[in-house]
């Protein structure tokens, strides 16, 4: 009973219930929404957001925010795309480590600016959002990398499947989620990220190396954006200097806050974030079925962020009330 209660009281249960209710509601109107094929479509919409959301969740848990992920995605995809285009001997898989390295470097740049000069992450990453986007245009000379330059083995990652018709790219995304879970829950540094976010003043007093942990968090966010970048090339088969990754940050932040990560730092789970990503995926897949034009997607992401904030607030208040009752 207590076990069931504690499961039901968790934030993740609420999101799971929301997903089920939403799917049933859409399924009642359009029965084809509840088919296995549709599940594949939903899953295919989510891998990039899921990978980005894992990095963003760590950043938000550490009480920062990273607005530059979409631009980092663009730069790292573009670097690999340019290499595929001009270096003929490059093996298809080389783009993956290269993109991750490029993203990690850019993320580290964010982290250095934030820690060295004690600047708020929001302003720094607003600046690098523009800076990195400009960089994408400069290295590409404002030209798109077309289909024929992206290696077919890379594109196959999003089309061929090892099992049950589910493409590799989805397994990669869930693999990243599992690794993030292990990092966040079972490593010393991972726990330090949570300690830092829940009380930044106390963290250095407990011997946490705040600078290193912050740098690491931003580097991870960058590296995962880089991975999302090369997978973007795999999924869509092109890299465009202006489209690739633009607006990515809002989708990812929406997924992370709906997944229960608290904007006040210190709170956030991998499972919640995964469910948040899936909920966004369900919404995105349901829109065309319901005949709602795609132009309304951005508004829905915005509304989702705000609703998540409201839920987060009422959950916190209830927590405070129950604490007062228990401890009075």
């Amino acid at each position, binding site marked *: 009973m207590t076990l069931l209660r504690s499961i039901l009281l968790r934030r993740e249960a609420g999101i799971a219930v929301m997903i089920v209710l939403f799917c049933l509601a859409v399924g009642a109107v359009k029965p084809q929404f509840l088919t296995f094929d549709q599940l594949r479509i939903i899953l295919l919409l989510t891998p990039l957001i899921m990978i980005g959301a894992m990095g963003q969740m760590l950043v938000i848990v550490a009480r920062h925010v990273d607005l530059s992920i979409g631009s980092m995605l663009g730069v790292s995809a573009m670097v690999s795309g340019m290499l595929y285009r001009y270096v003929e001997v490059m093996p298809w898989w080389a783009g993956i480590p290269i993109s991750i390295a490029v993203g990690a470097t850019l993320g580290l740049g964010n982290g250095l600016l934030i820690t060295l000069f004690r600047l708020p992450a929001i302003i720094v990453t607003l600046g690098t959002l523009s*800076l990195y986007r400009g960089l994408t245009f400069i290295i590409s000379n*404002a030209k798109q990398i077309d289909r024929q330059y992206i290696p077919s083995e890379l594109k196959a990652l999003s089309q061929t499947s090892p099992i049950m018709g589910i493409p590799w790219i989805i397994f990669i995304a869930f693999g990243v989620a599992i690794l993030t879970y292990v990092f966040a829950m079972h490593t010393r540094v991972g726990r330090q990220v949570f300690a830092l976010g829940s009380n930044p003043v106390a963290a250095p007093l407990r011997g946490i190396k705040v600078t290193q942990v912050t740098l690491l968090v931003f580097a991870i966010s960058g590296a995962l954006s880089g991975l999302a970048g090369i997978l973007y090339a795999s999924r869509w088969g092109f890299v465009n200097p202006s489209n690739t990754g633009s607006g990515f940050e809002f989708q990812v932040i929406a997924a992370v806050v709906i997944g229960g990560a608290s904007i006040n730092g210190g709170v956030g789970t991998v499972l919640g974030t995964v469910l948040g990503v899936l909920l966004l995926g369900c919404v995105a897949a349901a829109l065309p079925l319901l005949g709602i034009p795609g132009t309304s997607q951005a508004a829905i992401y915005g509304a989702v962020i705000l609703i998540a904030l409201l839920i987060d607030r009422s959950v916190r208040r209830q927590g405070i009330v129950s604490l007062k009752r228990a401890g009075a």
Partner: protein
Amino acid sequence: MTPLDTPRPAETIAPSQQRWQTLLIRPEIMTFLLLVIGIFAGSLLSPFFLDVNYILKSFTLYSELAIVALILTMVIIAGEIDLSPAANMALSACLFAWAQASGIPMPVAIGIGLAAGLAMGALNAWMVISLQLPSIIVTIGTLTLYRGLAQVIAGDKSIRVPDWFIGVDKIMLAGVPLPVVMFVVLALVLAVVLGGTIFGRQIYQIGTNEVAARHAGIRSARIKFSLFLLIGVVAAIAGILTASRLGSVRYDLALGGELQMVLMAMLGGTYIFGGRGTILGTFLAAWLLVIVSTGMIVANVLPAVQLVVLGGLLIVAIIATNLIYSRTQR
């Protein structure tokens, strides 16, 4: 807005710090010097830079953002931030254009646009002040929402405004375009309000230490609420001005404008953690930004490089401001 580290221990500087030093090493002075250097460098690039009319004409391209940046400066001084005004401009302009295109008389359509701006400001204010959610994340959310709603209303099409309504930037008052006059007048009014009235001084106190300000009897919630309402309405005015300048409205009106607005405030020496900053600084920074942007256009710099320069400038500006304040303004 939370500084990660504990505040620096009070530095052991001599108490008898020279007055001229604190006066001289102010961010606004830096902005002014940069402005002079910018004009000088620009005049080497092209003789147009010494032509006042050319500069004024270039300024009309940025005047709407600059007008909002003045209010944003006050919001940042009060210790909050608002990233949504650029999206607010787009949504109010779209609503206004959609209303007048569907046959509603122009004054009512303008009223609809302004009311929408006020409502958007009120939503921000309600979430930040009444519900005490952090303004950073709230305005990221409303930025997405407002821009998204603009996209819902306008779709991928552009909505035209009537011919007689086009060209507010062509109206001249004593040889100065009307939007520039509006910017200068608003800057003067706000400088007096911020520097010379009790209301203005209370904004600084809230930004410096909100808890202390509340204990001192300052109605911080009410003041911050009114600032968010104000920036909502002013953003709507700016959106309608932009509609008049461009002649048509699309959902991507002022896209990315939040960067320029924050950049103007930061370049002008507004302290990102609140409590410091002046209207004069933002006023100078707006001109500086126009000089830099126009200079890059004159010098045939690629638009992509301009993105890099603007982003880099924002980071350099905030580093410099923080350094100056940590040295002199203890």
